[in-house]
């Protein structure tokens, strides 16, 4: 019976499943974080106002062009193929053997970065133009405006989309088994290769994947609510609309 087999497989192989799930989670957490950072940095660079002339304009145009090429290329090719190209290509082209784990983090990061760049771009567009103008009007430069005013709002706006990307990453790390990353799918295949119970083994993997993605979803919802902040505020001091004060410049005139 299937259920008996599920229990047997679990009791015999739980360390392997757990290690696989741990690896999957680790790669997707680190990959998503680095990817999000890449996306934010590209977002800042993409929105730098274009200088009218000179070397700066040319440099910025070249950088923007390269970044666009990166985004389009990694969004336009399957991650499983990228994994093969990068892992075997790095050994062939540069003669250095990337260890599998580093390769896995690298692939997930740059892939996520390409998607996140677009998500961040959408997030920046959605911030009201008045926020940029107000920041500029008090003398902030582009970088200060981004760090102190715009990006905190962008991060809040893109949190749902980032969570989506996170969930996709947990599932898509399965393709990294092609380069021998010992994540959950790879471990499950090893287990099922030994016992020939494919349905039961992959059923366990299925449940484990779902537990991970659903936990992440719940955690991110909680984070979203937390970032909303309290809906109340407390007043300081006595009566409202008390305008006169010894240091008040308008008061000096009245004297």
């Amino acid at each position, binding site marked *: 019976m299937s259920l008996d087999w599920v229990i047997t497989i679990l009791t015999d192989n739980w360390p392997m499943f757990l290690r696989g799930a741990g690896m999957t989670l680790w790669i997707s957490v680190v990959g998503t974080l680095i990817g999000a950072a890449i996306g934010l940095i590209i977002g800042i660079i993409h929105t730098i106002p274009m200088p009218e002339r000179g070397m700066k304009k040319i440099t910025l145009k070249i950088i923007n062009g390269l970044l666009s090429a990166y985004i389009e290329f990694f969004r336009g090719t399957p991650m499983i193929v990228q994994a093969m190209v990068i892992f075997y290509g790095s050994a062939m082209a540069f003669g250095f053997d990337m260890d599998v784990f580093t390769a896995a983090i690298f692939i997930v990061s740059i892939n996520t970065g390409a998607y996140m760049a677009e998500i961040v771009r959408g997030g920046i567009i959605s911030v009201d133009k008045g926020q940029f103008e107000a920041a500029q009007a*008090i*003398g902030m430069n582009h970088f200060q405006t981004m760090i102190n005013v715009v990006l905190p709002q962008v991060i809040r706006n893109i949190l749902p989309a980032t969570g989506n990307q996170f969930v996709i990453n947990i599932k898509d790390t399965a393709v990294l088994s092609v380069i021998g990353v010992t994540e959950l799918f790879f471990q499950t295949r090893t287990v099922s290769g030994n016992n020939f119970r494919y349905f039961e083994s992959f059923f366990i993997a299925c449940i484990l994947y779902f537990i991970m993605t659903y936990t992440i979803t719940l955690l991110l919802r909680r984070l979203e609510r937390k970032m909303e902040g309290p809906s109340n505020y407390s007043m300081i001091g006595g009566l409202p609309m008390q305008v006169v004060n010894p240091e008040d410049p308008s008061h000096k005139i009245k004297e």
Partner: protein
Amino acid sequence: MEKVIEIQHLSKSFGTHEVLKDIDFSVQKGEVVCVIGSSGSGKSTLLRCINLLEKPSGGKIIYNGEDILGDRHDIHAYRTKLGMVFQQFNLFNNHNVLNNCVVGQVKVMKRRKEEAEKVAIKYLNVVGMDQYVNAKAQQLSGGQKQRVAIARALSMEPDVMLFDEPTSALDPEMVGEVLKVMKDLAKSGLTMLIVTHEMEFAKEVADRVVFMDKGVIVEEGPPEQIFNQPQKERTREFLKRTLR
């Protein structure tokens, strides 16, 4: 009287549409100037050109004797000297009331946080919003938002305050509280340049009123002259329509 801002032959076009045509204009230290005119006359664009939110197409802007459109001029440092109040308030949504007034001082002027907070509270007090330091922008009414926005601009201790139709987006009952704050500021000797539709307010607080129409300054002078004995036909027509 020394000129704080002097504008020479300023022009601004959006594509083929010429919004400002050869504007010559200046603001003296301590002066309160109100710019009036119908919608689309270019008065907001003039204000936005002065602090370079719009890049002028031609002409010069001279601030304390320096041409700020020159190649080497630091426009960020220049902007800290001009306080800007927007029609739509534009409070920073990710900061509470206090931080709205502090962030510019700390990040741009490199003031210490404690010092910046003291300054912020002083000016929040001036606008009567010092009790709301913990509130977020979304939790305030329009009039309160605008008063915080004024405090934010004042916290940078600018030489000139620019107001871009500060009461146009407010409910009628909230206009009064903002105008009261602005009247107090005008009396304190602050240099102010105000684009407004509030004629009564302009009549009361302005040292000089500038009437703009179709991208040119038609007439300027003391409020008594502009409102009681306008010299130009276009000014008379505009006032007849708005004052009635």
